[in-house]
């Protein structure tokens, strides 16, 4: 049961947060001083539906080890329906990545409301831990047509 510490692996993690709920949730985590690793960097988008799969793939291409998308809870979207579309799009993208043999823990969608500072922080802690357990992103960076 001995677990060896992953030596100085500092994952790069991109978190897309919708402006209305999740970004505010992250702010609440901040003002409540709920720590999560500095590896997580947040990009503010108006809505989870603004996130194009291209953004996620681009992040991986540029060396990200994990990408997480946070939005309002289904039904609570500031724009009513944005997160419903995001949900289907991300399901499709994740399923394709999984199909191509990319570890499915590297991508995640979590709904975090403006009141859920605690959830934001725990989610980020969990996600970073997960990325730690997966280690450096090799496959996505390596998924090229030409070798």
């Amino acid at each position, binding site marked *: 049961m001995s677990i060896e510490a992953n030596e100085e692996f500092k994952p790069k993690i991109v978190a897309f947060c919708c402006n209305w709920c999740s970004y505010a949730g992250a702010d609440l985590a901040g003002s409540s001083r709920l720590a999560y690793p500095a590896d997580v960097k947040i990009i503010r988008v108006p809505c989870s539906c603004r996130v194009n799969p291209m953004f996620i793939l681009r992040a991986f291409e540029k060396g990200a080890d994990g990408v997480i998308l946070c939005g309002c809870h289904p*039904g609570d979207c500031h724009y009513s329906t944005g997160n419903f579309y995001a949900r289907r799009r991300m399901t499709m*993208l994740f399923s*394709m990545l*999984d199909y191509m043999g990319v570890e499915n823990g590297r991508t995640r969608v979590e709904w975090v409301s403006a009141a859920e500072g605690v959830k934001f922080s725990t989610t980020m802690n969990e996600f970073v831990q997960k990325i730690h357990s997966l280690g450096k992103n090799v496959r996505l960076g390596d*998924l*090229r047509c030409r070798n």
Partner: protein
Amino acid sequence: MQELIARAKELLADGTVARVLGWKAGDLPYNPEPAYFEKEEDFKDFVYNSFCGANLSKFMIEASKLEGKTLVCLKPCDTYSFNQLLSEHRVDRDKAYIVGVGCKGKLDIEKIKKQGIKGIKSISGAEISDEADTLTIDTIYGEKTCAFSDAMLERCHVCKGKEHKIYDEIIGESKETKDAERFAEVERIEAMSPEEKFAFFRKELSKCIRCNACRNVCPACSCRKCVFDSTKFDSSQKANVDSFEEKMFHIIRAFHVAGRCTDCGECSRVCPQGIPLHLFNRKFIKEIDELYGEYQAGETVVEKGPLTSYTFDDVEPGIVAERG
């Protein structure tokens, strides 16, 4: 074929249509290519046989902008593409005179060549009129035979049916050639370990030369300007500066046609490197069927597709990780 030619000439003559979109014979016995026929004499090269796999519906995007109607020959599976384009306002129904042409399965010359048949001079049994189960191939090395179904395109083995989904008239008979499960190949890959999956796709995709044949032939991939050619995403082709599109082209292409792809199989048919590109699209089709309900793009003209609609109770993206 003669009935088709006769009817086409007749419609040209009475001014119903201004041109005919069909296939003309190529330089080899097995490579007919899409062509317009506007005058009586053009028809000497007109051909319709089991090598006419090309889906002509995409040509109707440009044809819709031309003066007058275009007679277009569509096989049953091509009509799905036409419907989908109609749903997306890309073609004009009023500019098309659709002749549903009969289809009994289309042939894949690569499959014939794989059986060691080379130096082909002519092939009989590929004419659409006969019921031949066997192809007789005259080669410079003598006569060879090959079972029709062994030479069939992959997509014909999972044929969607012999019905034309949209047409003005039908000429010729069609046959359902389905003899395999549509998703069997996808399931085989799904059952692999992540390492095997990764190795499989890496092997296949490493063959890609980015010739864009798949993109050019795909009826769903018909953007005026492809995102991979535009500056909007910093993703345009810049010679070897960025390997982004090389890595991700196929994922994004599959994503862009998800919910719109009719599974016509043209991408795999035209790939000069023989990459089974349809496996990407079919994976999405399978997911959509399983997660959001059975859906066949192009079955009818619809407003919203699966990725432009939703339900409150849709599964969460986490399902992908949960089912392992």
